[in-house]
């Protein structure tokens, strides 16, 4: 009887849960638009990375395997081109989005303030103080909304997409490109495209994954970018300057959010770990086979 009684009370609990208003224990960090941008970025980046490495490593069985997943050497190149153009479009949309996001009325202050992603001298201070904290020399810096490594990640992508996009377009349409630049410029474009792509992949798949998801305080995964919100108390600890500033200005209540449903969280974990697995697979395979290809 205990059994059935238990299941009854479970249903009761569910009903009660629906009635109760959700507790707002989280702080909103990203809007839906920003989360969609990041989701598209993940998807496009992984496809571009895989199809690009499939071409670069086509001499090895590892590269042939990836290429065959995308339908062979030629098809993976077509996919690389199409997704690359989609990524450029996404970047342009993001650039327009930024124009709407900038608070034009308070121009100098809004771009230099803590809500802005633009680099600021206080980031350099935060960087050195953080390193000093690694070695028990200083207390951890009081980060505001954006820490220096997050700003670096953002601007790395912001500079990477135009570099890869322009060289990529030149290389994808070489005959048309040779009417704009001399043909030998394609030799140069190829190497710029290669090094920037390898830099981007290595940075995302090694440093970004480790710093954001795998270090102890964020393990097993930081879902903030997927959920859009972070735990308020954790954020108060990690970004004290931001939460204090919001409390002082009385804007904290506007940014409070409730828990995401467990089903969505499972989906986010699944997606995040698949993305990480793909990235780590590309890094390990790429490094292991780097000696056996023609550069």
């Amino acid at each position, binding site marked *: 009887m205990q059994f059935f009684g238990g299941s009854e009370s479970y249903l009761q609990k569910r009903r009660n849960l629906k009635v109760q208003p959700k507790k707002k224990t989280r702080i909103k960090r990203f809007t839906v638009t920003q989360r969609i941008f990041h989701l598209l970025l993940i998807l496009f980046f992984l496809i571009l990375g895989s199809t690009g490495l499939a*071409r670069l490593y*086509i*001499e090895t069985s590892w590269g042939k395997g990836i290429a065959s997943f995308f339908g062979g*050497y030629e098809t993976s190149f077509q996919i690389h081109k199409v997704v690359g153009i989609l990524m450029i479009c996404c970047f342009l949309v993001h650039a327009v989005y930024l124009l709407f996001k900038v608070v034009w009325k308070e121009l100098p202050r809004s771009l230099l303030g803590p809500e802005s992603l633009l680099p600021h001298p206080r980031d350099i201070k935060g960087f050195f103080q*953080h*390193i000093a*904290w*690694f*070695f028990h020399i200083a207390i951890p810096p009081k980060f505001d909304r954006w820490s220096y*490594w997050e700003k*670096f990640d953002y601007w*790395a992508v912001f500079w990477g997409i135009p570099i890869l996009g322009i060289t990529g377009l030149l290389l994808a349409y*070489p*005959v048309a490109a*040779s*009417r704009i*630049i*001399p*043909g*030998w*410029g*394609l*030799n*140069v474009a*190829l*190497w*710029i495209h290669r*090094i*920037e792509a*390898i*830099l981007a992949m*290595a*940075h995302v798949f*090694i*440093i970004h994954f*480790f*710093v954001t998801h*795998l*270090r*102890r*305080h964020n393990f097993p995964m930081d879902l903030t970018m997927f959920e859009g919100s972070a*735990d308020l*108390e*954790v954020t*108060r*600890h990690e970004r004290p300057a931001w939460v204090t500033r919001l409390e002082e200005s009385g804007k904290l209540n506007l940014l409070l959010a409730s828990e995401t449903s467990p089903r969505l969280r499972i989906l986010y974990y699944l997606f995040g770990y698949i993305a990480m697995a793909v990235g780590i697979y590309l890094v390990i395979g790429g490094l292991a086979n780097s000696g056996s290809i*023609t550069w």
Partner: protein
Amino acid sequence: MKKTVFSLATTVLLALILLASLAFSQEEVASPIMRYKQYEASTGYYEEYEVLPQRRRPIISVPGVARGVFPYSPGAAQVRIRTRLVDSHWGIKFYQNLRCRTCHMEQTRDIHTVRANLTCRQCHGGEPIASIQHYYSPMNPIRKHAYICAKCHEGAGASFASYLVHPPNPFLASTRKDFPVLFYAFWTMMVIASVTFVIFLPHAVFWGLRELFTKKEKP
């Protein structure tokens, strides 16, 4: 009458023997209306440079040596510059028994050969392979884009043909002289990439270690 016909025939015969035979694609390419004129954005004067050679330096050259012989490698044989011969492999012993890659191993390591699976002959043609600077060579820069590149890259112009199919290794110091733009672009990108990793890789490692031994403050 007979004399006129005879002299005319002799002239035509002599012209056929002494002048090079017509290449049909040459006519097509030099046409002022069609094909390359509409794609090419360089000078627009095709009639001139499609047919007449320019006073252009060979693409492949030895720094400081314009003609004659140059040292192939320190202490090794002196090699005659072969960029203007009818048969660039003229006089090489047992040439029939050699493969291209026996001597040109470096030239087999490029995107066209490795990725697109092209063979040497698909661009360089059959025997005798003329030197690239030879007047009538299809590889001569004055017509390479039409005779070679455009076989696959439809619409290729002279600018397109300046792409180096066998580029120098940008890593090497010698590239600074051969292809300075490639050299400096390569090393600029390498410096950016290296600086990123030199800073952020130890940064991530020390951060990870610090957190490994620091318990997260439970809210």
